[in-house]
Structures are given as C-alpha cells and as structure tokens.
C-alpha cells in the first residue's frame, strides 16, 4: 500500500485503474472497423470509402486510409466489406495531436 | 342671608308679583315651544320680556337699587320692543317667514319634554344646592326651567330664527334667576349681558339674511360637518 502510494506520488502515473476492473461489455460497443489487408482490393476499397457517411475512409497511394477521428462507427463499411472486415472493438482511441488518428491499411488483395 | 333675598319672600306683595311674573315667563316659554308660526315666537318673546321688565322693576322697588331700574328700563326698551320689532322687520318680513317647517320633534313631544324638564328643574333645585334661605324663593326653579326650555327650543327647532328665539329665552331665564337670586347684582355685569344679547341678535340677523331662507332652514347647517 505504502509502496503503491509512493509510486503514485513519484511517478504521477495512474494509481487507480480507471475502470477499476475489466468491463466486458466494452467489446459490444460500436467501434471503428478493422479490415483484412489481404482481402481488400481497390474496387472494394472504393466501395467501402463511398458508403462512409462521415468521410472517414479514402484511398491514398495504394492504401486505404481510416481517420479514426471522423469515424462514427456506423458499420456501413462492414456491410459492404463483408467477411474481410469486422469491428475493431477498440474504443480507447485518444491520441495527442490531430494527425495521430490516421490509420493506413495497405490494400493487399489482388483485383481478381 | 343677603338682604335682597329676604325682602323677596313670597309672603310680601313684591314676592307675590315676582312669583306671578315668573310663572308668566314660564308660560310664555311654553307658548313658544308649542307654536309653529314665526310671528307668534316673536310675540311670545316680547310678552316674556315685558313680564321680565316688570319683575326686574318689582325687585328694584323693593331694593331701591338704581342699577336695577336702569336694567328694567333697558329690558323694556330693547328686549320687549326693539328686538321683536327688529326681528319682524329685518327677518320675518324680508324673508317672508311665516310657518316654521323645520321641526326636529313634533309639538306634542316638545311640550311633554318641556313638562319633564320643568319637573326636573323643580326636583333638582333642592334646598342643598342653593345658598341658605334662597330655596324658599319659588322663582329660582322657574328660572331654571325657563333656561332649560330655551335650550329645548334650540334643540327641537331647525330654523335659525327659531334657534335665535331659543337663545333669547335662555337669556331671559338667566336674567330672571340673576335678579331674584342676587338683587344687588353689579350693574356692569347686567349691562355686559345686554350688550351680548344685542350683539348676538345683530349677528344672527346678518347671518340669517346672508344665508337666505332655504339655507337658514337647516339644510345648509347640516352640511357643516367636519
């Protein structure tokens, strides 16, 4: 206890877990999508980007760019991408600076 | 015992005359109370004043006081002649006053009240109220009754002229009481009372003339509330 206390004082790190335990239901919250780079093709990526209502997906230099900041986790891209995608289940997405929210997903699938 | 009072005992002729005069004065006051015509008020007042002059003269005969003679004369001239004729000429004729409409109480009620007041005067003026010996003079309760009757006239009549008559009757009662009680009354006081009476008559004549008949009838007087 004392060691814990002193550590908290000294290192200013989280001394209490911010939800105290693991919250299993956080996995069920809507979350940004995750794509299978192997299954992504350029047409599919274009289709995925075109259904995104919040302009969070676009193609750039052969990559599908996902802006986590803009994503509202609506799930429309998941419907389009089908089995090559799923919810990322990741909701703790804060980053310092506005540019840290960009995720580049290489388009690895063949057009066939 | 004052000298004047002793000489006016009812057994003496002067005493008899005085008593008779007092009774006449009382009767004329009742007559005023029981009348409705302005002209009669003035007539009865004149008669009352004449009798009063006689009474004063009687006392003057007995006491030989020169002041009382003057007083009797003044009473005769001013009260019995001047004031009635002045009221007739300046008020009754000019305002055409005939019948007094402003009665606060009916004639019958007024007369009964007057009788009650006279009885009260006789009851109240007991022996112990007056100086020793004076109680035997019957004119004293009569004078008191006349004063009360004058007051009653003022209360039950609404018209200003009738109230003036009531006031004059009270004054006559006062003089009657004064000459019978204290025959050697200082003349200067009597003269002062006379001046008062003359002044009040003059004032009342002016006021009533200024008001006019309608106003003097009491309607305007009733509006004099605070």
């Amino acid at each position, binding site marked *: 206890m004392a060691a814990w206390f002193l550590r908290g004082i000294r290192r*200013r*790190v*989280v001394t*209490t877990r*911010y*939800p105290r335990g693991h*919250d299993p239901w*956080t996995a069920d*919250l809507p979350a*940004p*999508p*995750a*794509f*299978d*780079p*192997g299954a992504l093709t350029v047409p599919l990526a274009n289709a995925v980007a075109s259904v995104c209502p*919040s*302009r*969070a997906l676009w193609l750039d230099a052969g990559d599908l760019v*996902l*802006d*986590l*900041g*803009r*994503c*509202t*986790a*609506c799930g429309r891209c998941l419907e389009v991408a089908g089995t*090559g*995608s*799923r919810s*990322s289940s*990741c*909701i*703790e*997405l*804060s*980053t*310092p*600076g*506005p540019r*840290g*929210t960009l*995720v*580049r*997903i*290489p388009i*690895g699938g*063949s057009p066939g | 015992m004052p000298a004047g009072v002793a000489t006016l005992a009812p057994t003496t002729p002067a005493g008899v005359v005085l008593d008779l005069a007092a009774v006449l004065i009382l009767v004329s006051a009742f007559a005023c109370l029981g009348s409705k015509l302005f002209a009669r008020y003035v007539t009865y007042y004149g008669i009352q004043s004449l009798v009063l002059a006689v009474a004063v003269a009687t006392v003057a005969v007995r006491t030989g006081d020169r002041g009382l003679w003057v007083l009797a004369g003044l009473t005769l001239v001013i009260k019995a002649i001047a004031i009635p004729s002045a009221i007739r000429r300046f008020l009754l004729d000019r305002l055409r006053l005939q019948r007094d409409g402003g009665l606060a109480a009916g004639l019958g009620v007024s007369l009964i009240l007057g009788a009650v007041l006279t009885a009260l005067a006789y009851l109240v003026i007991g022996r112990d109220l007056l100086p020793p010996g004076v109680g035997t003079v019957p004119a004293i309760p009569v004078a008191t009754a006349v004063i009360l009757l004058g007051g009653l006239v003022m209360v039950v009549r609404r018209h200003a002229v009738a109230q003036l008559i009531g006031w004059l009757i009270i004054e006559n009662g006062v003089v009657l009481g004064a000459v019978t009680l204290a025959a050697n009354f200082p003349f200067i006081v009597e003269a002062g009372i006379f001046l008062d009476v003359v002044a009040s008559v003059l004032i009342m004549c002016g006021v009533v003339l200024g008001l006019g008949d309608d106003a003097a009838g009491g309607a305007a007087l009733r509006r004099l509330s605070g």
Partner: protein
Amino acid sequence: MTEAELAARLRDEVGRTFGRSLHIRTIDTGSCAACESEIRMLLAPHYDLTRLGFFFTPTPRHADLLMVTGPGAVGMDHALRLTYQAMPDPKVVVAVGACPLGGVLGPDILTHGSIQELIPVDVVIPGCPPSPIALLHGLLVATGRLAARVNPARFMTAPPPAPGKTA
C-alpha cells in the same frame, strides 16, 4: 532535439503540471448532446472522475483543460474564442467526438465542420459519442498519465503483407 524527444519532454511537462489536479471546462459548439451525456456520466460512481483528481469547473478562469464538443457552429465562435482566451496558460484543448474532427458535418454557412482551424487542439477523443471510458482514457492521455496507444494493427484483421510483396 528530435520531434519525438520534444514530444516526450512536453508530455513530461504536461504531466508535471496537470498530473495530480486538473480542472475541466466543457464547451458545446453545437453538438447533439450525446457527447455531453457521456461527459456527465464521468461523474457517476462507476467512473468517478474525481478520484483521479479531475474536476469540472463552471468557469474557464479556473480551468486547465477545455473539452470541446460539436462541429464548431458559427454562432459559438465568439464564445469559444473568449473561453479559450479566458483560460490561464498552460492549457490543454481536447476535442471530444467525431463532430469537432470533421466527421459529421461539413463546412457550411452555419458550421465550420471542424474546430481544428478555430483553436489549437492538443488531444482528440474519437467516438460518436465516445464512451465514458474513452473519455477517461483521453483525459489521462491529455495529462500525460497514459501513453497514447493507437495501434494500427488493431484495425487490420490480419497482419499487413510485407511491402514489395504485393503484385
């Protein structure tokens, strides 16, 4: 000094300044109030913001951190600028939700679409709305008590193919 070193030093500085006590002011630039609803949940016992030394304050004069929600409605420009100015230095701006990051409304005559050009944003908390856990995480990141951990791998269901290997 590289950018990374500078960032590390800055994080350390922020941690030293705000690490133990932080006062938060929120401002709504036209949000749908879902974010506000979640922010309010922070005070519920389950999340219990104050145990971390964080407090909401009614005035920016006492605030160290500004939480901005909403897409930057034009009508709130003045208020947003005044609020930012009224906060004493040093201060942190946290953009909460997808709106301030341009995810919901585009720029038009009523909104700026994003607040990033209005005031400098230090930390973003994505989500529409971000859950209270995400908000807590964001606040801890903002104060330097947690490292940011956006791992691109988590948004890929399979490891990316090695570069050059594709056709």
